[in-house]
């Protein structure tokens, strides 16, 4: 039975890691920009979600509204993507390194922005560990909310897959990603597409942060810490591929659960050793495309 707990925990941390990296992968896949603000945006979603929920509860809203409130809060906070993209657009023509550096500039700015508004104390949604209760058989017990997060993560993944593969807009996005010049020649307003994708990437981050906040705490070190975990997932899965984000998250989540149960001493180094191993076997990650 104990193994079931470890398995559930592995799936849960994989779901969380997917939410962190989905936005990063989408933006890189289409625009070939590594968005270092993925961690900061995730933290913003977490902080904003917590405040939004407190605001609703203070006004008599029932705690059961937790999920919708967090989802909406995430969507609202994600609009910061417009601000970042507006400035990032100024360096689209420049060398890729400068786009990466521009996102680093926003990491610095967002760090103080978060502290100015939400203060230095880690923000935790205290009084509802099991607002949706807990389920389980005998030893195996898990909070329903964690299962909800897993479902949300899966549905976001499916939604993204459907959007990119199934919709007309998805085709346009893939065309722009494949060959920007040609798409422009075919009348695609690539400026709008890149803005849409960048904002969607940010929204994925903030919604992810908001959804997960009840199971964790928003703190000022979240941004820089998450980037490290996101990079491990993305390097393993392959930069730019959604399937890569999913498999990378499962591998890293699984690795951590196994490492903790069977050889805790190596837990910190375990993930990085996997990263280096994958890079030897497949230089561009499991699903990454070799860049010309």
């Amino acid at each position, binding site marked *: 039975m104990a193994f079931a*707990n470890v398995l559930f925990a592995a799936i849960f*941390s994989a779901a969380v890691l997917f939410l962190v990296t989905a936005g990063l992968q989408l933006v890189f896949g289409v625009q070939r920009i590594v968005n270092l603000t993925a961690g900061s945006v995730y933290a913003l979603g977490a902080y904003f979600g917590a405040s939004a929920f407190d605001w609703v509860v203070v006004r008599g809203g029932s705690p059961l509204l937790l999920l919708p409130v967090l989802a909406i809060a995430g969507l609202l906070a994600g609009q910061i993507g417009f601000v970042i993209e507006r400035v990032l657009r100024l360096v689209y023509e420049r060398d890729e390194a400068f786009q990466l550096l521009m996102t680093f500039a926003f990491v610095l700015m967002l760090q103080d922005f978060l502290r100015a508004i939400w203060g230095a*104390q*880690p923000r935790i949604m*205290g009084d509802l560990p*099991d607002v949706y209760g807990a389920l389980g058989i005998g030893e195996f017990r898990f909070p329903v909310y964690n299962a909800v997060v897993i479902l949300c993560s899966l549905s976001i993944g499916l939604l993204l897959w459907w959007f990119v593969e199934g919709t007309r807009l998805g085709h346009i996005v893939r065309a722009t990603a494949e060959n920007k010049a040609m798409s422009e020649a075919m009348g695609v307003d690539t400026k709008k597409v890149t803005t849409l994708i960048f904002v969607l990437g940010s929204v994925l981050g903030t919604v992810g942060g908001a959804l997960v906040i009840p*199971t964790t705490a928003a703190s000022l070190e979240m941004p820089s810490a998450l980037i490290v975990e996101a990079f491990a997932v993305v390097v393993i899965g392959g930069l730019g591929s959604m399937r890569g984000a999913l498999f990378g998250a499962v591998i890293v989540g699984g690795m951590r659960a196994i490492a903790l149960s069977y050889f*805790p001493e190596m837990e910190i180094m375990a993930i990085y050793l996997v990263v280096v191993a994958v890079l030897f076997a497949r230089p561009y990650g499991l699903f990454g495309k070799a860049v010309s």
Partner: protein
Amino acid sequence: MTIAKKIARRDVLKGMGGTIATMAGAVAMPAIAQNAPVKIGILASRAGTAAYIGENGLRAAEWTASRINATGGIGGRKVELVVEEETNARETLERARRLVLQEKVDCIQGVYSTGVSLPMAPTLEDMQALTIFWDGTTQDGVKETMPSPRYVFKSTDNECEAVMASLLVAKHLKGKFKRIAAVSPDYTYGRNVWTAFKALNKKFGIEAEVVAEQWSSFTQLDFTSNVAALKAAKPDLIFCVLGNADLPIFMRAATSAGLTDTARFVLVQAGHQHGQLKKPFTPEGTLLCYNTMYFARPDPSTIQKEFVEYYMDRFKDYPHWECERAYFSMMTYKAGVEKALAAKGGRWPGTDEVASSMEGIEIESFGGPARMRKDHVAEEVFYGGFASHDNSYDVCTLANSYSFEASVLQKPSGADFWKWLETANFPV
């Protein structure tokens, strides 16, 4: 705009002026006029893991300064704070040099992390800068890293919390547990404290099997896997050394997974996150160590009562024990200066004189009587106990708060920590 910021800005401008003066290199420092303010440099962190702790220390330092000024200052001179930010070792040392060489402060107080205090101490000593660390000093874990300082005064020993936790466990839980597990960030303090706990268990004849040890990274935000692994190991006592945002996260995950029903938790650094340990996921009976200030102490000293009321009214939050460290540092300095002032018949004492008069001085701090030992190690009263929910706050308080003199929990100067653990007779 807190007092500190106003003070900091005005001072900087004067500081700039100071640079030009020294640049000209002409004007010798005037004799210390009786009415010139006593300048105290504060190093408090504002970002990262220690931001919350630095903020508390700064608020307490400001409150103490205004209280001193309201009662006539130190030897008739008003106290003025020059606030700088504690970040990493390099930047903080530069800020300290700026305070000493530019601002010409009379005393430096502050600093929380050992990663900053230990490297700074030799340089401060070399600059003959009177310094009182709030925290993060004395031994680096166990061995003496600042032998016989002259101008630097150290905080109480890091390990006091852990020794207190072990004593409380031995006294109240002996025989109630057989399978122990450890959860801690992977750093020297965590490892030393866990080893000390096992050693003391053996000393008090407690037979306990270690069933799991987990060493997390500092910024881990997801503990579901840790909890699952712990549940598999079926411990009945979990020795937890987490102290940042990871502590409430871990407790929440443990409660959701039902781990708190099968094991008792010993939270060695509960004091760091006591404002976050909400009742729903901190069950009654959890052992909480509050360090040198327990804000809800049943019969608090008048000074603590006044401060806690001020703090909770003004900031709508529970004061962290760093406030006591800030208060203790400020009052020790004040007492030291006044003692040296009396000895010199009213003439203002030099840094050396203040330093030597501070050695062995006793004051009344928030937690009760506290003193600065001759070897520059502070001794204050530590608080701990078992969590209870019947209070009007949304966080836990202690069912019955036990207090320990630091002298009981702290090895005498020069002794080897591990030998002391074996030989000392602790009040159990």
